[in-house]
């Protein structure tokens, strides 16, 4: 197909590749066919697991559950390892794997109930992380990294440092996405982990916005000075500045060019705004990461997150609507000013270049 040749064409003209253009991939099914197959796969596995649950008594002892869970996961590994993509089998295997994971998670909680609860969550997170590395399937990778990140944040909550969660996840996501193409054999795994981490950040941030602190999943934990909410936003702001700095480095721009100044100024303003209207920083970061790699999916996710967070700001009861209106007006005016400054500096730069 011609489209595959166009990228190849440009690259070979620049001398970066040589030889014949590779063959394009085969025909893909449209998404709605895959949806039907996915549903059938999931429901089939529900019935099969129902049969299994009735036939074998898995909840008697943790050991039995662990063994059955392990076998199920091994089975889905085999199913997912086929070279030719079969959507139905893929979703069948995904549902099996999920059931196996639940069994193992149950085992960990039942079997080691006496241990520190944060450690239990960290163990599950590690297990999920291992799965995301081992399982040869993109959707599974996204699911497992999502679960790993969520379990990690629950564990951190129980350890008393809940506000670190989002910054850690976004920092990891930034590192992964900025180096998306740099390790050929890990591209798909990286992308899966990248998406999983981003989704987890959105979910955790969403929880914080609605006051559902993950800490409340089980006991009270004292908060210390280290874990004030604004510390979390501050850390996130630091990660964002790092992201902006890395992008500027990639473009080989000086830190005083109009674009750099606009970038840092805009980032700073939005980070401050995010203390008031939580979640704006996360959305902004996702949009930037998406554009940096021409990833429309990420950009869309970022825009959706921004819109969702601004809309949910309406419902937060900390301030009156009047104060919120004033905050939004201020943010809007500052953003437009930054834009005007950027254009002005760009024009002056061009005028200076012409002379």
């Amino acid at each position: 197909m011609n489209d595959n040749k166009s990228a190849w064409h440009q690259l070979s003209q620049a001398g970066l590749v040589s030889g014949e253009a590779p063959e394009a991939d085969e025909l893909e099914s449209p998404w709605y066919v895959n949806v039907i197959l996915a549903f059938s796969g999931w429901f089939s596995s529900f019935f099969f697991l129902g049969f299994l649950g009735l036939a074998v008594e898995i909840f008697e002892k943790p050991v039995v559950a662990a063994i059955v869970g392990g076998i199920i996961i091994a089975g889905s590994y085999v199913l997912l390892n086929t070279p030719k993509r079969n959507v139905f089998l893929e979703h069948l295997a995904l549902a099996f794997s999920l059931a196996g994971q639940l069994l193992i998670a149950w085992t960990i909680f039942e079997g080691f109930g006496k241990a520190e609860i944060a450690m239990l969550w960290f163990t599950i997170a590690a297990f999920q992380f291992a799965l995301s590395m081992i399982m040869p399937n993109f959707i599974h990778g996204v699911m497992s990294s999502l679960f790993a990140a969520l379990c990690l944040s629950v564990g951190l909550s129980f350890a008393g440092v809940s506000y670190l969660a989002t910054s850690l996840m976004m920092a990891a996501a930034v590192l992964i996405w900025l180096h998306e193409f740099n390790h050929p054999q890990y591209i798909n795994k990286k992308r899966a982990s990248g998406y999983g981490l981003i989704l987890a950040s959105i979910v955790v941030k969403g929880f914080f916005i609605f006051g559902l602190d993950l800490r409340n999943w089980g006991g009270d934990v004292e908060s210390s000075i280290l874990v004030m909410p604004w510390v979390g936003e501050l850390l996130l702001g630091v990660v964002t500045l790092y992201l902006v700095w890395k992008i500027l480095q990639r473009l080989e721009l000086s830190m005083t060019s109009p674009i750099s100044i606009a970038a840092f100024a805009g980032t700073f303003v939005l980070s401050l705004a995010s203390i008031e209207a939580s979640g704006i920083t996360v959305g902004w970061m996702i949009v930037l990461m998406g554009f940096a790699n021409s990833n429309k999916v990420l950009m869309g996710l970022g825009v959706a997150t921004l819109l969702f967070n601004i809309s949910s700001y309406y419902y937060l009861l900390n301030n009156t609507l009047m104060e919120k209106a004033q905050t939004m007006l201020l943010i809007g005016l500052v953003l437009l000013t930054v834009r005007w400054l950027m254009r002005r500096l760009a024009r002056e730069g061009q005028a200076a270049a012409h002379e």
Partner: protein
Amino acid sequence: MISIRNQLAQLVEGRLIDPGHIDKALALVGVYPSTESWQRFLDKLLLWLGCLSIAFSVLFFIAFNWELLGRFAKFAMVEALIIAAIATYWRLSDHPLMSKVALLMAAIFLGVLLALFGQTYQTGADPWQLFFTWAMLMLPWAAVGRFPAIWLLWLALLNTATVLYYDTFGRLFGVFYSSDESLYWTLFAFNVLALVIWELLASQWDWLDERWSLRFIATASGVIVTWLATQAIVDSNHTWGVLVWLAFTIGLYVFYRHFKHDLFMLSGAALSSITVIMVFLNSVLPISGGGTYLLFAITLIGLGSGAAVWLGRIHKEWSK
């Protein structure tokens, strides 16, 4: 069509680019945007975010003061929105998409105006009358606009009006069995009629040939008739449900397989058939321990894979 981004990913995965040259390659084909791209992007982004912030600020301000606004101020605001939308439609007549979206917004604001009217002057009207009046009033705009989305809104409004009518009166012209069932039959008949008329007119008028609008209507009809069929099986009182479902499914298959190629409709028909068959199995077999579940699982696996293979074959056949 594979995007440039995915093409590069395939090339990198296939080890066809020297590791040292990957970054340069990505910059060359534009996956890593250039400085100018970033400048344009930031320019647009800051503009959108800035205007969005200010728009939200105005919205929050109005919401804060809503109680204190007089009724004339409220009406004036909504009417101004309608006029602004129509003006946009008129001014942007050389941008086909934007002007049509403006007309759609005008139709939506019309509904807001009617709701405000009903809320302010307690007329004692029934809820269905709001939607019905809305549909009738926006009909000229729908005819003029030639935008499938506006017609879709119109159909949705009539559907909603029907549902609300049943809520109030419990029957339509005093016919049919129980009120619940007759509601579904009416909705099904209405939507299938809309589908048939739309398909017929779409062959005449190009602008009507919007696949996704038709798929939407077909999905609505399909869901309703599948529900009716499953109810018929479970109740085993009336076999009409199954017969009509059969007729609908066969009709879908014949039309969209041979006349107008649309894989989505065939997929929907497949999903509907699988659902009905599983419900039928469930009603015929008694639940006795794990064995029945295993049978269900195997049947569903068979049906699902069968549907996959069949649809895949058709897809390949049409792609040649």
